[in-house]
């Protein structure tokens, strides 16, 4: 039996197709989010690569900001629950999840059964999210996927403390004009994202294991900064970007079993 989970975020669309609630047969990511061609494209890719079609899917569950725009989905479930489900499937020892996506950062506390017992999300401002990193990557003229590499070569972490993204931008610019190495500034940018995320994470009580997911988890620099700030080991979830879609596919599997 196949089930499909689709996670439509603000900046990207993700799909996971699951066989028997156990094996990932397709996982696809397209860097366009809700309101764009992203959702259709990511579905198309997943079906093309797996050789499957919608008709093969026993159930479809949607999550993410665009979850209500997916006509094919039988159910919509919030990304908090989906991330919890996905992470618990991948890392059963997880008790705390830090998820940083395009416009949201969340910290989720899990109980032993993998159920959500409390969660916190960032306020409206972009600081501490993927969007913040995007802005900084543009200012620094360093591609997003190279940020971690730069960070690893930093000789020190300069302070980028402004809460406001606009102020932080001017802070970074002034570091640049003072000839501070980009490596050190990027380490500072990562520390700034980490500090915002940790502000949420601390409130969960920080039970281990701590697992990170979301697109930003692919950035080792941020992961390192979070681990340093929390003084704890941080595990990066396998397939961090598709954890939400995986959770949705798992929920879809549960639904499908209910019907049987």
């Amino acid at each position, binding site marked *: 039996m196949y089930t499909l989970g689709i996670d439509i975020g603000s900046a990207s669309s993700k799909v996971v197709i699951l066989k028997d609630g156990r094996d990932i047969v397709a996982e696809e990511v397209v860097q366009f989010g809700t309101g764009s061609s992203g959702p259709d494209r990511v579905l198309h890719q997943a079906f093309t690569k797996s050789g499957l079609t919608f008709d093969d899917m026993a159930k479809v569950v949607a999550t993410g900001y665009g979850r209500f725009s997916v006509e094919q989905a039988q159910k919509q479930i919030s990304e908090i629950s989906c991330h919890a489900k996905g992470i618990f499937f991948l890392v059963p020892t997880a008790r705390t999840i830090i998820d940083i996506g395009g416009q949201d950062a969340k910290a989720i506390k899990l109980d032993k059964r993998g159920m959500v017992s409390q969660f916190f999300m960032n306020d409206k401002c972009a600081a501490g999210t993927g969007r913040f990193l995007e802005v900084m990557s543009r200012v620094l003229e360093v591609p997003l996927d190279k940020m971690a590499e730069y960070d690893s070569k930093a000789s020190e972490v300069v302070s980028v403390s*402004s809460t406001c993204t606009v*102020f932080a931008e001017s802070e970074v610019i*002034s570091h640049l004009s003072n000839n501070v190495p980009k490596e050190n500034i990027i380490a500072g940018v990562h520390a700034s994202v980490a*500090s915002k995320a940790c*502000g949420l994470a601390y*409130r969960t009580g920080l039970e281990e294991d701590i697992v990170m997911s979301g697109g930003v988890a692919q950035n080792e620099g941020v992961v390192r900064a979070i681990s340093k700030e929390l003084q704890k080991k941080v595990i990066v979830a396998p397939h961090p970007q598709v954890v939400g879609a995986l959770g949705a596919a798992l929920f879809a599997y549960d639904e499908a079993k209910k019907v049987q």
Partner: protein
Amino acid sequence: MSEVEGMTAKQKLVYYQDKMYKDALEGKAKGELVCWSSSIAPCEFCETMGIHMIYPENHAAAVGAKHGALAMIEIAERRGYSLDICSYARINLAYMDLLVEEAKTGVTPKELEECPGPRIPLPDVIITCNNICNTLLKWYENLAVELNIPYIIIDVPYVHHWPIPEYTKEYIADQFEYAIKQLEDLCGKPFDRQKFIEVQEQCQRSVDAWDRAMGKACIVPSPLNGFDMFNFMALIVCARAKYAAEDTFNTLADELQAKADRGEDAFKGGEKFRIAWEGIACWPYLSHTYKSLKSLGCNMVGSTYPGAWSIHYTVGNMKEMGAAYCKMYSNTELAHKVDVITDVLTSTSSTGITYHLNRSCKLMSFLNVETAEIVKERTGVPYVSFDGDQTDPRNFSPAQFDTRVEALAEIMEENKNK
């Protein structure tokens, strides 16, 4: 007082401040009482009762100036305090949490150990006066509930129509009596009215000395730079009821006068412009803001701070004392606020003014647009506004500040040449 003999005003400032923190810590260890107080609350009552005073706003500013704010702020945010709350309050509430943790576990938390500000003891009683803002009422309410200790409130209702009405003075005077009763219950001893008179007399002498020293900023060119004023302010807050304040400010006034007599100014002859600064300092960027202004030849000579602690009343007159604590310009209607700031500009011969749009302080920010416009209309003095925060280093942009004050200097230059 032999230890302070021959000391400069700056040395006295450091000496007395350290001594007060030390006395409070040692006193606490011996079982003496400690009170946490807002910075312009009446200190006369606790002083009469021999209670050690600690001023959280001052303490938070010191932590901020020594770059320890962020660590505290992060602790407050972990507790669930919104980052939109006054940063003084966040620092203090976090500090309180750490002190409580230390008292409970016997282990000093790392963040407390590393906090660069002076160590302060936990309070046995707190007193607040909302002449600064109503935010203080909530902040101290939280302290009172978390620590389960007596909470003295001196409510000086917002003066929406100047002058202060008689019935407001009567209400405040009655609260003074209630505060005395709360203290008598706490201390288990009667309030010594004779000593109270002596304390009031000391306060008046301290305030006179403060006025005298701060008045030197009116001399052109000024022997005092306003950022020193920010520093000396600590003592009028913390030691108004003590000889320490009177002594230090008299020394300072003499030093400044001597300097002026020698024809020297605070910038060694570099005073090009005289400006006023409206609002609280940006403590974590004190040095940046000072240097930025200095590089333009701007001496900040005008501030509403001197007036804030110019708390005069007839000794023994409770209603007058109430009015003196009520009249803080931010606690009064817009028209009176404008009068106060206009007076600052004219008395100090300032030709420019900066308004600090302070993320932490709604009361000292939300009337800025109106105030600035009316003051400008009345005096012709140009103004600039900049975004900042008293102690949260994340809400200030040095580049923005520099651009704004440069623009102000250019306008002042142009006005000069007119």
